[in-house]
């Protein structure tokens, strides 16, 4: 027995001298100190990792049976759903995962906005996150086209037409993107390549950067105070606890809770009443018949509403793009002396509520026809959305904040 143990440690020594596995584990899990007061909102980071793993694994399995051609794409999805053993499960895991990804990421972003996780010294952490969000949008959009149903086809067409609005080079650009004069399987094949190889590579590289950035500056916390400012004699943060075992056990518990909800959707309401899998996408792509209502899948709905709110197509596209890009500037727009919403003034609280509300209302409006009252509402809400960001330097400076404590209480 003892000899065997010596042998094992011999192997692990042999490895560790050449590849610092143990050292890595100790540095990033055991000697990595996280604030002791991380709450519910801090789970969404690990949830997004779980969803990413789910998407990668099921994606590989699906790519083995999916056929990216105009004639067979739709039928091959039905083949997966009907004939491949457990194909239905893999496909629903992937489609539910796509929507879950956005739910988790939106809540993750909301948490960062709420507790000021983008403030100095976490600007690059925030920026890598913004880039990740955009890459994720590209990934999900290219994926959404692959089933080659009516919504896939017409969604791709609407987005491709946006590029046509660029003055001067628009039409040429659209032909270059499509590789054809219309949306055809040429685009489908390109999107397949992007969806399964190019974008995931970038996505995973960015996730690694995001985590490296996080581990170099450490987690923010709901109080928005820096735990590294108050250390003991050994240099360990007084309000920090070891990530392992404390947050590993907590995260495992949370992930299981998340998986229960995920499994419930996956097994009982995979269409999620037409939000996750839209009815119109159960019809094969048909270039001759436009569906009665083209609406984007729910997670793009808010941005789509902003696009339509602007009367001019080019400016609409610009507004939609800005709505995402403006997130990148938040670290420099926020001028508050404190990080967390808990100690910020009334202005920030109102602004954050308005932001959530306008984004949600825009999400609803994106599913409705852009006429009459809906259109006016969409315009107002687009204004509110941007105002929340653009007025940030003003309201964060003039509002009166409370002084956060030096230490985390309790």
């Amino acid at each position, binding site marked *: 027995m003892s000899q065997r143990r010596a042998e094992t440690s011999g192997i692990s020594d042999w490895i560790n001298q050449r590849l610092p596995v143990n050292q890595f584990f100790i540095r990033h899990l055991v000697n990595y100190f996280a604030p002791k007061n991380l709450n519910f909102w801090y789970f969404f980071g690990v949830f997004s990792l779980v969803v990413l793993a789910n998407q990668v694994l099921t994606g590989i399995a699906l790519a083995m049976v999916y056929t990216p051609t105009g004639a067979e794409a739709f039928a091959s999805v039905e083949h997966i759903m009907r004939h491949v053993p457990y194909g*239905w499960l893999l496909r629903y895991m992937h489609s539910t995962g796509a929507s879950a990804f956005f739910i988790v990421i939106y809540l993750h972003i909301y948490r960062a906005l709420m507790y000021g996780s983008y403030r100095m010294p976490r600007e690059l952490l925030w920026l890598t996150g913004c880039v990740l969000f955009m890459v994720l949008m590209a990934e999900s959009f290219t994926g959404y086209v692959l089933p080659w149903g009516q919504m896939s086809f017409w969604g791709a067409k609407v987005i491709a037409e946006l590029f046509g609005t660029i003055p001067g080079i628009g039409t040429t650009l659209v032909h270059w993107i499509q590789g054809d004069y219309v949306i055809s399987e040429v685009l489908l094949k390109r999107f397949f390549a992007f969806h399964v190889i190019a974008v995931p590579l970038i996505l995973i590289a960015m996730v690694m950067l995001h985590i490296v950035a996080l581990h170099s500056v450490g987690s923010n916390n709901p109080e928005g105070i820096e735990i590294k400012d108050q250390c003991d004699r050994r240099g360990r943060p007084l309000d920090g606890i070891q990530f392992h075992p404390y947050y590993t*056990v*907590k995260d495992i518990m949370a992930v299981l809770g998340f998986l229960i909800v995920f*499994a419930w959707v996956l097994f009982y309401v995979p269409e999620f009443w037409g939000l996750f899998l839209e009815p119109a996408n*159960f019809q094969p792509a048909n270039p001759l018949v436009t569906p*009665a209502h083209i609406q984007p899948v*729910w997670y793009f709905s808010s941005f789509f509403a902003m696009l339509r709110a602007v009367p001019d197509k080019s400016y609409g596209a610009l507004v939609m793009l800005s709505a995402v890009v403006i997130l990148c500037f938040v670290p420099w727009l926020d001028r508050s002396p404190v990080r967390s919403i808990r100690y910020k003034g009334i202005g920030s609280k109102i602004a954050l509520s308005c932001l959530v509300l306008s984004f949600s209302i825009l999400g609803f409006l994106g*599913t409705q026809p852009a006429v009459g009252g809906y259109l006016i509402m969409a315009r107002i809400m687009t204004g509110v959305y941007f105002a929340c960001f653009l007025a940030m330097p003003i309201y964060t400076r003039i509002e009166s904040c409370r002084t956060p404590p030096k230490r985390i209480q309790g």
Partner: protein
Amino acid sequence: MRKFFKAFISIVIALNVIELCDAAPIRLESMPQLKSSQARLISGGRLFAQHCMQCHSLQYFTHDPIGDASGVVPDRMPKIDPEAWSGHPPPDLSLITRYRGTDWLYTYFYSYYQDASRPTGSNHLLTANTSMPNPFEQLQGTHQLMISKDQLSVLEKQPASQKPPWYRILKTMHAGSIPAAEFDTQLTELVLFLEYVGEPHRAAREALGGWVIMFLLIFFVVAFLLYREYWKMLD
């Protein structure tokens, strides 16, 4: 946080309420809650084989026990040539319930009414001027429109909640060869069959879901106890 959840949930509910703004003059009828069983699916399949399969295919539905027992098998499905149908071939019905929903399909067969101005002699409330005659006219009998066509187009513009059900504007002209209640059951079985065709693994999915969720719940409890065990040390 609570505020955020409330907003999120209200949006989900709002999205749920939206119906496809079809320009139909009637509202959709809920399908009777018949419990699906193997026997019902087979009998629905037989109805499909007798009345629908001359023109409609189920191209994604391959051999399976229900299909084999009811005679809905790939070799007997029509090969549809769009040319022969002057560009309007009868659609494939493999996914009709996933696209339209079961209530729409159920209401569909109650929406035929006699209309001498049409070449088929009948018209339809959900898909006006359809070229498909009622496949169940024999069993079901015929209906007559009780309001004028102008009133029909007024109804079309009303919000979904104010539209009448089909039986408010149609009345029976000739009774069918079987009692109405029996036809209703047969029709429901047909819709159940097509729902099955739309997603044959649905029953397996829901059965597996129970086990998976049960396992995860047990695991969650263990993980929670473990979490409490470790975090106790911090108190």
